[in-house]
């Protein structure tokens, strides 16, 4: 058990800056998820922590210990690879025992730990098999088991679910969360899938082009994204963005998008009034746009009209891909009872309590 600290960590591959001045403190027992599109530096960050890459600049601490020059095997960490990296010529038992044998753990202790880990993961009956005799899900468990037996201070996961089918992924997600509670160890997890991040993390670190964008709880990232990138990355379907202007009329503040005008709720108008007259990026999530007949109670409604371009029935909801009268595309996630077909003009209600405003130049959130 240990915290992890990145201090001004930079990693360059030639001229390419993979990680740029990352400073981040991960608390003991935290489940921190690095998320971002491919090439954003999240895996490099994890590999730096594992000691598989050398720092270009900065320092990394595990607990209070500076580990910049500590080889991977002495960092007291275990890693689950995306490919699982099971040793193909060894049985499941030997795969899990390999690290303990190298550390000269007594035989009966190895036996005890391997069986305990196998029991936790439900793979006791597989201990004699070779990796190629296992299914993808079973291999993934063995890879996790290999990490558990080592009893490390920090667990590292590099996209461990991306090779599983969708159903198994959902199931394994829950199991990893459970495992985190059970082990009470620091988990550092890398994924490109924001759903994985949202469901498992105690905190999420969003990265882009090697730069840390925002670190916070899933809830806060969703409700108060710090910039346009985070707002667009977290949530599915992505947040809708419109170029708009803040205007005041009759003492009320409005978001004027040209073809629509939406009133800002009074409690938000206070803080946004100082941007009056400015151009802004107006962001609204698809789930905050409702079809008029099915508006939920206790929201601050503002109406707009749009033409339906495509509809996608998901069962529990419908995604409406709409166009504003001046032809700007956005998505609404509406009640499945909504009767809308391609080409229809529909009345939509926007919940302005959940509006987001961003600066068009810096793309930062306006408060």
């Amino acid at each position, binding site marked *: 058990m240990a915290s992890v600290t990145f201090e001004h960590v930079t990693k360059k591959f030639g001229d390419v800056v993979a990680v740029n001045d990352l400073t981040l403190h991960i608390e003991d027992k935290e489940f921190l998820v690095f998320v971002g599109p491919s090439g954003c530096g999240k895996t490099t960050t994890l590999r730096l922590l594992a000691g598989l890459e050398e720092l270009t600049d900065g320092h990394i601490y595990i607990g209070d210990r500076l580990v910049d020059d500590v080889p991977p095997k002495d960092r007291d960490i275990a*890693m689950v*690879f995306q490919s*699982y*990296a099971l*040793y193909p010529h060894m049985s499941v038992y030997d795969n899990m025992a*390999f690290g303990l044998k190298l550390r000269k753990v007594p035989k009966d202790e190895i036996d005890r730990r391997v069986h305990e880990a196998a029991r936790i993961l439900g793979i006791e009956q597989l201990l004699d098999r070779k*990796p*190629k005799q296992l299914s993808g899900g079973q291999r993934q468990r063995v890879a996790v088991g290999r990490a558990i037996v080592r009893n490390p201070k920090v667990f590292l996961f590099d996209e461990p679910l991306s090779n599983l089918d969708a159903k198994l992924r959902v199931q394994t997600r829950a199991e990893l969360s459970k495992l985190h509670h059970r082990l009470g160890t620091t988990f550092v997890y890398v994924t490109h899938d924001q759903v994985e991040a949202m469901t498992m993390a105690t905190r999420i670190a969003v990265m882009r082009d090697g730069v840390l964008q925002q670190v916070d709880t899933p809830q806060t990232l969703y409700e108060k994204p710090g910039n346009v990138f985070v707002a667009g990355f977290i949530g599915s379907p992505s947040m809708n963005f419109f170029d708009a202007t803040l205007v005041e009329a009759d003492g009320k503040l409005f978001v004027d998008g040209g073809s629509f005008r939406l009133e800002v709720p009074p409690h938000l108008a206070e803080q946004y009034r100082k941007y009056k007259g400015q151009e802004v990026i107006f962001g609204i999530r698809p789930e905050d746009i409702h079809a008029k007949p099915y508006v939920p109670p206790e929201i601050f409604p503002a109406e707009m009209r749009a033409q339906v371009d495509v509809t996608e029935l998901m069962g529990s909801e419908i995604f409406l891909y709409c166009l504003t009268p001046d032809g700007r595309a956005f998505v609404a996630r509406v009640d499945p009872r909504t009767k809308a077909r391609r080409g229809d003009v529909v009345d939509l209600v926007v919940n302005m309590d959940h509006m987001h405003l961003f600066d068009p130049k810096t793309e930062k959130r306006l408060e």
Partner: protein
Amino acid sequence: MIRRVETTLAQVPLHLILVGMALAWFIPTLGLLISSFRTQDAVLSSGWWTVFRNPFLAGQFTLENYRAVLEAQGMGRAFVNSIIITVPATFLPILVAALAAYAFAWMDFPMRRTLFVIVVGLLVVPLQMTLIPILRLYNRTHLAGTFPGIWLAHTGYGLPLAVYLLRNFFAEIPRDLFESAFLDGASRWTAFTHILLPLSVPALASLAIFQFIWVWNDLLVALVYLGGTEKVAPLTVRLSSLVNSLGQNWHLLTAAAFISMALPLVIFFSLQRYFVRGILAGSVKG
């Protein structure tokens, strides 16, 4: 159904060619084998295929030829010499090449690429160019005519190809496996012995077969560095001198030839399954 007939038909010419090639190699060998069991009179008076008229006729086959060749003609001693030469001359280059290939594939050191290109470049140097300088060196260091001398020579000649093949094979092993081993606490040496070597058995085995057969069949290098003295001469050297001394004694020559073929056949058939086995299946995602 029709498609299956079509594909079968399309494969007929291929199979004819394969069967033809197999026969072309097999028939002379079979003739050699049968002749080696026939008496001198029979060999001189009729062709080997005539035995098929009465394949089970007792008395037309004899082991006498083998006895004569092994004892009187010194093939027994030569057989032992061949083993003494071939086993270390197979093992040494593969060991050295495996270590070198591991470094070329998985370690960072200055001039790595350049050095590798030089090693690969040595593949095109004809062996004959090296005979005189090395023999002079051997004479000065008293390695000429000794087993260690020929071990070293074969190691040197075998290395470029072995390093080249093994490096390419090693480089295909997923990086994750090594990194995982390092995280598990493995040193570079442990990763070599516990991960790399077990996974490379197919490559090592096929290389071993090549090197073994090449050394076993080698006449030139043995003749130059060892000479023809009975104490050290391998089968190939002995066999070629038998051709000179027993030119007309086909029954003995065929037996001698078969003795020299026996071990390579055993080696090949015992290791051939590694040629086709893909041990990497299942290591990374399936």
